[in-house]
């Protein structure tokens, strides 16, 4: 399982990369492996406002549809449209392909997320 330093991690296996007030959100390697081959990503609309814990995206493998939850509150300011035609990018490079960028309302929410080391331990327990 791959993890990356300097990111925040949620218990639902999303990662957050902070860029100023903007949070780039994606799914982890653990998540893409658990999902299997991803064949469809339902992206949110620009401008949508989310509370932390809301479903912001649905990721579908051949077998099933899985909800993804945003770890931070805020407004969607960018979506990665490349995923519409190439959803498999989330399998190939989960940390190279963010799904949305959210302008954070409350950056202190990041404090409740895990760092890389804590996330690794969390995943070991999930196994």
């Amino acid at each position: 399982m791959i993890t990356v330093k300097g990111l925040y991690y949620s218990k639902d296996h999303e990662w957050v990369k902070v860029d100023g007030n903007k949070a780039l959100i994606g799914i982890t390697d653990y998540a893409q492996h658990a999902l299997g081959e991803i064949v469809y990503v339902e992206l949110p609309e620009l401008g949508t406002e989310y509370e932390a814990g809301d479903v912001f995206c649905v990721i579908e493998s051949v077998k099933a549809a899985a909800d993804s939850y945003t770890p931070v509150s805020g407004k969607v300011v960018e979506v990665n449209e490349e995923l519409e035609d190439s959803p498999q990018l989330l399998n190939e490079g989960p940390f190279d392909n963010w799904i949305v960028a959210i302008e954070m309302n409350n950056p202190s929410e990041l404090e409740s997320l895990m760092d890389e080391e804590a996330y690794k331990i969390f995943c070991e327990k999930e196994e």
Partner: protein
Amino acid sequence: MDNLKKTSLFPSYKKYGAKLVDYAGWAMPVEFSGLTREHEAVRTAAGLFDVSHMGEIEVKGKDAAEYLQYLLTNNIGTMNDNQIIYAFMCYENGGVVDDLLVYKYSADHYLLVVNAANMEKDYQWMLDHKGDYQVEIENLSDQVSELALQGPKAEAVLQKLTGTDLSEIPAFYLKRDVKIAGANCLVSRTGYTGEDGFEIYLSHEDAPMVWEKILETGKEDGVVPVGLGARDTLRFEAALPLYGNEISQDISPLEAGLGYFVKFDKGDFIGREALLKQKQEGPARKLVGFEMIERGIPRHGYSVLSKGKEIGFVTTGYYSPTLGKNIGFALVQKEYANLGDVIEIQIRKKTATAKIVDKRFYAKNYKK
């Protein structure tokens, strides 16, 4: 997974990287190397499935044929020895108790192969309707392992492990006492993928060895272990119904377009009256195939609409690995079931348009 039933192959799963799921109370592999890869292997080479969770119920005795005629919708009377037919066991109202295969050994000896999820219910139903028929009904489900080897290379691979000439087993026929890698097996040319292939019934003791031998022998031909995930996408593309999706207690065989397996001219059977009425009046609902026009993957249970009005539901839907399209089956009110009609599928908060198409998405590749 600890409290689930396990097949005799369970200890072999890990070696092949299985991801496990709870399926009808069994710890079963949903995939090994990846659903799409496994799906393609079955379409182009062959795949090996553990289907030991399936139920097997034996019917013996002088009234066996007569009893099964009464219990099932298809005609038992025209079967040859060693022949297999597909049939429904129905309720009085025409709903389905289960769909199953009937294996005929001889005029007074049959084996029914039933769905794992329905096995207990089926067995009880069979006992409850035994009446005065002189039959012995025995549930062998706990005693039998079952493997399925499916795909265009299935025969060539299996032939390397047996002295029996497999080409002499026609589609929907069985042969008993076939030695595969030395193990005593019942082999039938049947399956649930739309490809040629075999189902192999054997003891729990022999199953892990035969599993290993088939994978070893078939490796150069591209044989891989296949999980329940691809089993479902394969049967779906080939328009083979799944109990609980296309047929159920609430969906009759006629609504599902499977009237071919209901023989009204054979005499009385449970459900005949209700089904005959349905046939004469025409079923109010019809199972159709559809292909998405707009983006989105249809899934089991999603609502189907026409101009905003609900007209039915999706029974099975997928991104089809073979066709590379989002397709599905839906049970809809018959006035909306015309080829070419545009319908809408409710996918979470949005609707996406789809078009009704022929439901035979993939032409079955059975041996003639």
